[in-house]
Every structure is written in structure tokens, then in C-alpha cells.
């Protein structure tokens, strides 16, 4: 074509030869032509072309640094072949790359000889042996022998850089992966290179451990055996492990994992790089709580109460007893006197089977998966955003809890968005959070004034201009358990009124709570939610309560109500993996299988359905929740028609709105995004009038931290001691006002009772408020929370 005009005159020619892709770069790799993307690093382009360039320091999810020099290749960009660091150099047009030339091979051999100069070669006793990039590449690209005769470096071995991670410095090849991860990805730069030259090594600051919530990832990305995880160290050899891909259910982010076991014992979880979800990362709670599955405190067989004791019984006896309890309750109070709480722990299939048992067999509308610590489930129906959409939004409005504490990998994704300046975060929180330092605007509000704070901020000209750019995602969750969820909904409505096109990512916390709600574990017409059921129970209107992996005494914010409810209910059936505070009140405990002991599907907070794998045999005679539901239904005279997980997956696809595409095949890998549900009611909660705070009182803020008394943490010995314990946090100036000092005990009095806490000075807490972490060992803050009050104020006095 001779004309430079766009050739509208000749559309036929245009159709034959589409305009060249402006992002395509033609290069030659090992003599073969390849089309790379503009700006793509040579090492990635070569991988796309099927040529794997060896590397140690390069990691797709982190900035390249070119430290290890293993990826040297010969590249010719017009001036003759030159030695090129392929992880640092982007492709250029007509570049000719040779990854196998004699020069490249010599360089690779030389680099490996140098990297091994100080490496101890203790592979036979090293945990990494068998899955070690250094070992593998020394075999595939190394010279086979070394000319180095000098003494190698020696270090004290190993040093614990945190409670979970150990460091053998002599094995380290200084690739900068762990330190880059800590700084760039986790934002906790607590490990760093120390000294220089031959003395360079990784350290923490003395007495300041690498106490990151994400420390386990450094073990996974270490290309040698320098970093090892305490829970896995010396436990197995890689070639003895069997593994399956699965999904982490520790929170509702649903990170993709590989579950590994040896001799039918769970030994390790590893993160799998899932582009839409976790980018390969896991939080430490999700990574190490496999220990709870093999805890010796597990309930291994069904138990029936006789007097104050539990007697182990056969499944037949337990089922008959459970069915009898339900039948008695139905006779005494009709279907609506039966309530089922829970289901967020299991698979979609478990929840669906129990939902059918509750709604169809027993006929009760009182079925609910949330524990009074979430938000109305109708939120799931309203223009849902995906995690990717949130992490690529121009503006992220956070109306939620501290994501670092509750949904750690979502925190990583949003932190990345803010730190790389893709997104601006506008955060509304009653207390500073992990994301506060990355927020463009942080608005601290006193509980009860959230909607007003949002309205005031949105009227700011800069904020309005930012929101007017469009592409806004609102992340909404329950920031304060001591405040009515209506406040959050009112705040959400303020934002949505100001930004009509905004999408909403609902930050529900519990593992499969979204799946459970969507496949049916929610109140039917006229049914009660968990708070309603517990209130009805306390009033003597519930004849039988089923706790499906639920522990209201620990998880329901209002402990007093939960306790009165469990005391008043005459018949309690618990389906649980452990004897929790609540299941100890049960008449029958049905022993449930735990994570990795059952297969199925999981729904994460964005509605992504992924597979859960059964990697080990269920402990004792435990059964999956769905089997218990199916059998109980049979005892009650109805056949649910489920004889396998696949039956229920098919039933879900058939019956549940949005799950039409879900099959066990589509749930594999990155899974399938379920469509927005059409069968959930819109959210309408009237905002209760919030009383003025008395100037002598403090408004209570209660939220969770990553490690608490939840069984998966408390029953994992490596994690249990990381829970901080219950303390009340006050702003340092308020501490003076109370007339106490950090570390002393204070009496915190609510409307019902007083609780004595140790006090901590914390300038991330707003003045006039008191923050207490929820569900911690020690004094119970739940005693101070009235779940019907719009806010909870407390008086704080010295003792």
C-alpha cells in the first residue's frame, strides 16, 4: 500500500491482511521465529516459545533484579551476539536469541560453579533436596565438577527468623527472592541483606523477627534449601509426597493450593499461581493450619450425651438419636422450631445437602450459614465485582474490616494495586488497618457515624473528581462486630448513590460462606437468621438446634445471647470436627470429616467455584457433612437421592441460580465464576437511631485478627501461640485520660457486665473508641456486646 490514509476505500484488502498487532515483536529464538509481546522480558518470551532459560532470582510475580546471572543468554539485537541477562532485558524487534550456544553453556557452567563455591551440598539432609532448583539446574546446566578448593562459608545453623521460618545461611545463594517478597509483595521488609561481599547474608533486625502473615511464601519461593518451614522441616522427602490441587478454605478468598501428604498424613500446603485469585501466595494461617486436621483432639466417632458425659456410639445409634431429637422437636413445636446454624466450613455439596435437609425434609425456614458477624446475604446479588476487577479498579472504596487480618491474600492483591499506583484506595474504618498506609484517603470514623463520614468525604471535590473517573469497586464487609451491620449498609448505600456504576466485592470472611449461602443455607420465607434463631432459642421457641460446624459461643458477637440460647434449647445436634465450647452442649455430636478429607467444590467471595480435593483418608469414622445430611434425611423418611459428591454437584448446577456452568470438570484449575444470583432478596435494613456517646464512655470496636481461637488455628501447634490474646487497645492520650498506663489492668463495663482486660497503648485506635480483638484467649469481649444495639459503649476504669 502506498497511501498512508486508513484504507477505508478498500475494505476487502483490509480483511485479508489485518493490521499488524502494535504489541507484537518479532524475534528469533534458537533459529525459530517467535512473536513476543512489546515490553516482554526475554526470559518470558523464551518460555512462551518453549525454551526454558534456567533462573534462580527471577520470579514472574516480582520485579526482576538480575542478581543470580543464571539466565545469561546470547542475544543479538543488531550489533552482534552479546551476553544478555534475559530477566532484565525486554525483547526488541528482530532480536536473535540463542539459549543453547556454546558461549551460553559456558556461562551457565561458570555461574553454577560460582554459586556452588559456598553452597554446602548437604542435599541428602536438606529438605529441599529433590525439589531444589539449584540441585536440578546443577545437574542440567552445571559443569559436573568444581575447581574450588577453598573452605566454604560457615554459619550458625539454622537461625529462626520467625516462629515459623528457619534460615540456614550457608545454603543461601543471595537471590533476593525472599527479601524482595517481604518488601514488594507483603510490605513487611523485616528481612534484609546484611554486610557486604563475601559476608553478605540475610538477617532480621535483632529481636525483631520476620513476623509477617505471609512468611511461609518465602519458603516456597526459596530456590535453595536456605529457608525451611518449622512445621515441615525434616518431615518428608519430596519424592514421597503425593499431592492434589485444591482450594484453601481458611477464609473466603479461596486461594488455589496443592495439598501434599505422605503415608496418608497431611504434611504441607503450597500455593498455586492462580491469576484471578492468589498469584501463588498464601497467608501463614492458610499454609500451616493443616496441623489441625491431624490434631489428636479431633472427634473421631459420633458421641451421644448421657448425663454430663459423652459416650462414643456407632453411627447407626447416633443417627437414630439425632433423628429422634428432630422428630421430637417437630412434634413439640412444628418445623419452625428447628434451626440449623452453620455450613460455611464445608463444601458447596455439604451445604446444599444440609439446606435440602432443613428446607425440604424438616421443612424449617430457619437455616443460616452466617454467624451474625457478616452482612446481609442479599449483597451478593448486587453487581458483584471479581478480585481482579477490584485490583484493577481506578478507585477502591473500602468499607470493610482490616483485610490484612481477615482476608490476607485479598489484602496482598489490593496492596499491590495501590503500591503500583494502579488504584487509589479510599478507606473508611473505625481503626487504622493494614491498608491504611497505602490508602489515598483514610477516613477514621467513630462507630455509628460511618454513613455520615462517607457522605462528608464524598462531597469533597478531589474525591468526587477521583470517583468521577469511573471504574470504582466497593469492598464491603463487617468492620466492627460491636456495631449493627445496618451502619455498613447505610454507608454502602451512600457510596452507591454517589457512584451508581460501582461494583461491589463482598468481603465475607468465613471459608465457604458465600457458597453455603448461595446453595441454600439461608433463611427461607419467614425464616430467621442466626441472631433471630439464637434469640428465639433464648425465648424457648426453638426445640432443636443443629450446629453445623458452628460455634456460636466463640463466633457469635453477643456471647451472652449465645449462652442463653444454648442453655434454653432442649435438643442440640452438633456436626463438628472438634468438641468446641458450643458442641459440648450438644446431645449428639456427629463426627465430621475435615478439610482435605473430603472432595467437592468451594465458592470464594467473588463467586468463583473451584475444586476441593480429598487427599487423605477421613480420620476415625468421621463422615463428610453431606453424607450425614443424606443419612439423617433417610432416618427421617426421605431419600435426598444423593449417593456421591458428583450427584450433589449436578443437583447444584440444576437448582442453584448462577451455578449452571459448575461441574467437577469446570471447577478444576482456576475454576468457573458463578453467575450473579437472581434468587436473593435486595438488602433493606432500616438504620437504627444511634445514641450520642456519653463523653465518659468509649465506643467499642471489635474485629478479628488473623490468629484467634478458631479451631483451625488453636489446634495447629505452630500457629496457636501466635494469637495475641485479649487486650483492650486505647489511644495513648485516652490512656492518660483513664489514668492508667500500658500493661495495667482496667475494668471495662458495658450495659450487662464488666470484664477486666490488660490495656495496650495503640495510636492506630481512634480517640474515644476502644478496640478489642475478637475470639482471643483470656477475657471475652463478647460479654460486652449487645447484638441488638446499634453501637456498644463501654466505661473504662482503673482497678
Amino acid at each position, binding site marked *: 500500500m502506498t497511501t498512508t490514509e486508513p484504507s477505508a476505500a478498500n475494505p476487502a484488502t483490509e480483511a485479508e491482511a489485518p493490521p499488524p498487532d502494535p504489541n507484537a515483536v518479532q524475534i528469533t529464538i534458537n533459529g525459530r521465529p517467535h512473536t513476543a509481546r512489546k515490553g516482554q522480558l526475554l526470559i518470558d518470551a523464551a518460555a512462551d516459545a518453549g525454551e526454558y532459560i534456567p533462573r534462580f532470582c527471577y520470579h514472574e510475580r516480582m520485579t526482576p533484579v538480575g542478581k543470580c546471572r543464571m539466565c545469561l543468554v546470547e542475544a543479538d539485537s543488531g550489533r552482534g551476539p552479546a551476553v544478555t541477562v534475559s530477566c532484565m532485558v525486554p525483547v526488541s524487534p528482530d532480536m536473535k536469541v540463542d539459549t543453547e550456544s556454546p558461549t551460553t553453556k559456558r556461562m551457565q557452567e561458570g555461574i553454577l560453579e560460582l554459586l556452588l563455591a559456598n553452597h554446602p551440598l548437604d542435599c541428602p539432609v536438606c529438605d529441599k533436596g529433590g525439589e531444589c532448583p539449584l540441585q536440578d539446574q546443577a545437574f542440567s546446566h552445571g559443569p559436573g565438577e568444581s575447581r574450588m578448593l577453598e573452605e566454604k562459608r560457615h554459619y550458625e545453623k539454622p537461625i529462626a527468623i520467625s516462629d515459623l521460618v528457619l534460615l540456614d545461611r550457608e545454603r543461601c545463594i543471595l537471590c533476593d527472592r525472599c527479601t524482595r517478597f517481604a518488601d514488594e509483595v507483603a510490605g513487611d521488609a*523485616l528481612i534484609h541483606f546484611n554486610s*557486604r561481599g563475601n559476608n553478605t547474608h540475610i*538477617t532480621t*533486625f535483632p529481636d525483631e523477627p520476620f513476623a509477617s502473615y505471609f512468611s511461609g511464601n518465602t519458603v516456597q519461593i526459596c530456590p535453595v534449601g536456605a529457608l525451611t518451614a518449622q512445621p515441615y522441616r525434616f518431615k518428608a522427602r519430596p519424592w514421597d509426597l503425593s499431592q492434589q490441587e485444591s482450594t484453601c478454605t481458611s477464609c473466603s478468598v479461596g486461594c488455589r493450593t496443592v495439598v501434599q501428604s505422605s503415608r496418608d498424613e497431611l504434611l504441607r500446603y503450597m500455593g498455586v499461581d492462580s491469576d484471578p485469585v492468589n498469584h501463588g501466595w498464601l497467608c501463614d494461617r492458610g499454609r500451616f493450619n493443616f496441623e489441625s486436621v491431624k490434631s489428636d483432639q479431633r472427634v473421631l466417632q459420633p458421641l451421644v450425651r448421657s448425663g454430663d458425659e459423652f459416650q462414643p456410639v456407632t453411627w447407626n445409634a447416633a443417627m437414630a438419636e439425632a433423628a429422634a431429637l428432630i422428630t421430637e422437636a417437630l412434634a413439640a413445636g412444628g418445623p419452625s422450631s428447628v434451626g440449623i446454624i452453620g455450613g460455611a466450613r464445608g463444601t458447596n455439596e455439604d451445604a446444599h445437602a444440609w439446606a435440602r435437609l432443613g428446607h425440604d425434609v424438616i421443612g424449617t425456614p430457619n437455616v443460616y450459614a452466617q454467624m451474625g458477624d457478616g452482612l446481609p446475604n442479599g449483597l451478593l446479588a448486587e453487581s458483584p465485582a471479581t478480585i481482579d476487577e477490584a485490583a484493577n479498579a481506578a478507585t477502591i472504596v473500602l468499607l470493610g474490616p482490616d483485610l490484612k487480618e481477615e482476608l490476607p491474600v485479598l489484602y496482598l492483591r489490593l496492596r499491590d494495586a495501590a503500591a503500583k499506583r494502579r488504584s487509589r484506595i479510599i478507606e473508611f474504618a473505625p481503626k487504622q488497618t493494614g491498608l491504611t498506609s497505602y490508602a489515598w484517603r483514610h477516613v477514621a470514623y467513630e462507630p455509628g457515624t460511618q454513613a455520615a463520614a462517607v457522605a462528608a468525604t464524598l462531597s469533597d471535590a478531589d474525591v468526587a473528581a477521583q470517583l468521577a473517573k469511573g471504574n470504582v469497586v466497593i469492598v464491603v464487609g463487617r468492620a466492627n462486630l460491636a456495631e449493627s451491620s445496618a451502619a455498613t449498609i447505610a454507608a454502602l448505600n451512600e457510596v452507591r448513590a454517589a457512584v451508581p456504576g460501582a461494583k461491589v466485592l463482598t468481603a465475607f470472611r468465613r471459608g465457604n460462606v458465600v457458597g453455603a449461602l448461595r446453595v441454600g443455607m439461608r433463611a427461607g420465607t419467614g425464616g430467621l437468621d442466626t441472631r433471630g434463631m439464637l434469640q428465639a432459642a433464648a425465648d424457648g421457641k426453638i426445640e432443636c438446634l443443629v450446629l453445623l460446624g458452628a460455634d456460636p459461643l466463640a463466633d457469635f458477637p453477643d456471647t451472652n445471647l449465645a449462652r442463653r440460647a444454648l442453655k434454653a434449647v432442649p435438643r442440640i445436634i452438633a456436626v463438628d470436627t472438634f468438641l468446641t465450647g458450643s458442641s459440648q452442649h450438644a446431645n449428639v455430636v456427629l463426627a465430621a470429616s475435615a478439610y482435605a478429607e473430603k472432595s467437592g467444590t468451594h465458592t470464594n467471595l467473588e463467586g468463583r467455584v473451584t475444586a476441593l480435593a480429598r487427599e487423605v483418608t477421613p480420620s476415625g469414622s468421621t463422615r463428610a457433612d453431606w453424607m450425614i445430611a443424606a443419612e439423617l434425611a433417610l432416618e427421617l423418611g426421605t431419600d435426598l437421592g444423593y449417593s456421591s459428591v458428583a450427584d450433589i454437584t449436578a443437583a447444584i448446577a440444576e437448582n442453584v441460580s448462577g451455578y449452571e456452568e459448575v461441574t467437577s470438570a469446570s471447577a478444576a484449575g482456576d475454576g468457573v465464576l458463578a453467575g450473579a444470583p437472581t434468587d436473593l432478596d435486595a438488602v433493606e435494613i432500616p438504620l437504627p437511631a444511634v445514641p450520642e456517646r456519653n463523653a465518659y464512655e468509649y465506643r467499642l470496636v471489635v474485629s478479628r485478627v488473623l490468629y484467634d481461637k478458631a479451631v483451625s488455628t488453636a489446634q495447629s501447634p505452630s500457629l496457636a501461640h501466635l494469637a495475641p490474646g485479649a487486650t483492650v487497645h486505647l489511644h495513648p492520650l485516652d490512656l492518660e485520660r483513664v489514668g492508667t498506663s500500658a500493661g495495667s489492668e482496667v475494668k471495662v463495663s458495658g450495659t450487662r457486665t464488666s470484664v477486666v482486660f490488660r490495656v495496650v497503648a495503640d495510636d492506630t485506635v481512634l480517640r474515644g473508641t476502644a478496640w478489642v480483638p475478637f475470639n482471643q484467649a483470656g477475657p471475652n469481649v463478647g460479654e460486652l456486646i449487645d447484638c441488638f444495639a446499634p453501637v456498644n459503649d463501654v466505661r473504662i476504669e482503673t482497678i
Partner: protein
Amino acid sequence: MSRLNEANVLVAKEIIGRYPRARSATIPLLHLSQQQNGYITDDAIAHIAELVGATSAEVLGTCTFYEMFKMAPVGKYLVNICGTMSCQLLGADELMHHAEQTLGVKAGGTTSDGMFTLEHAECQAACTEAPNMQVNYRHCHRMTTANFDELIDDLRAGRLDGEIPAHGTLARVRQQIPADKAAGVASPDAPVVPAWMPEAAQ
């Protein structure tokens, strides 16, 4: 207590104010801290990290990278004897041997009165004046065992106090930078036009 003292915190804040990003002040503050205490303590590192908004581990990493930041107490005078080629050929080994004998410590050690720390050093860039040594990084040229003894005597007697301040002292007159010359005047995010571009002239 070896955090920065109150006066030095004010200096530190002034130094931090010169930079667009607080953590750029890490190395100047390490110098300030070494001037205050003669060496860098863990407490000082934690304090600097607090002031510049970095983690203690990052400041420690920066600090240990540089040999002239001392992580353990050193004498009032740090004596560095050059051992690189020119000096060695002209008697650095004898000088070191003599220094060790005179001061009663091996290279790397500090005398028991806390006056002198003796160290080996690499080339001090004065090969024409070999053998060289430095006292608190002040050059001493064409050293012999005799003028070494003389120098040590003078230092002990305080006759050189006006010339060689105690270890850690960077300068006795603190640098004053007018506000309009501070590095932070232009935002680091503002686009920079290189001087050779025609736009820069406008």
C-alpha cells in the same frame, strides 16, 4: 540509651526535610548517630528507622553494607594502616608490626584505655606518599616507626585535638543548606527534562 539525643533529633528532622523522601536521609542519620556515640547501636538503628519510616532491618542492611559505620565500640582514634601494594613495598608490614607492638593490640583490636583501634586498610589513594596510614580518616604520609610513635604520643597528650576530632565526627561545622536549595524543592514525581533537551533551555 543510644538513641539520638534531643538536640540531634532536631538536626535529624532538619536533614530529613532536605529530601523529598524521608528514607533518603538514612545514611546522613547513621553518620549523625555515629558522631553522637562513636559507633552505631541497635537502638540507634531502630530510632533512625522510626524517623525515616523504614523498617529496622532495612536500616541495618544499609548500615552493615558500609565498613565505615562501626557496629561495635571503637577507640577515640581509629588507626588505619594501608596494606596495599605501594605501601606494602615501602614497609607497611613493619609499620603494622610496630603499631601492634606499640599499642599492644592486634589489628582489629582496641586498646584497653579506649584510645586507639588498629585496623588494616586497603589503598588510601596516596601511593606516592607510601607508606600511608590514617587516624580517623585523616591522612598521615610517609610513616616511619619513629614518626608513628611521635604521632601516638601527640594524640595521647591531646596535642592534636584541634586537628583530629574523636571518631565519628564528620564535621565540626554543620552544613547549612538554604531551603530553596534543598533536594525536596521539586517533587520527585514531577517530570524531569534533561539539561541537553531543547525544552530545558526554555
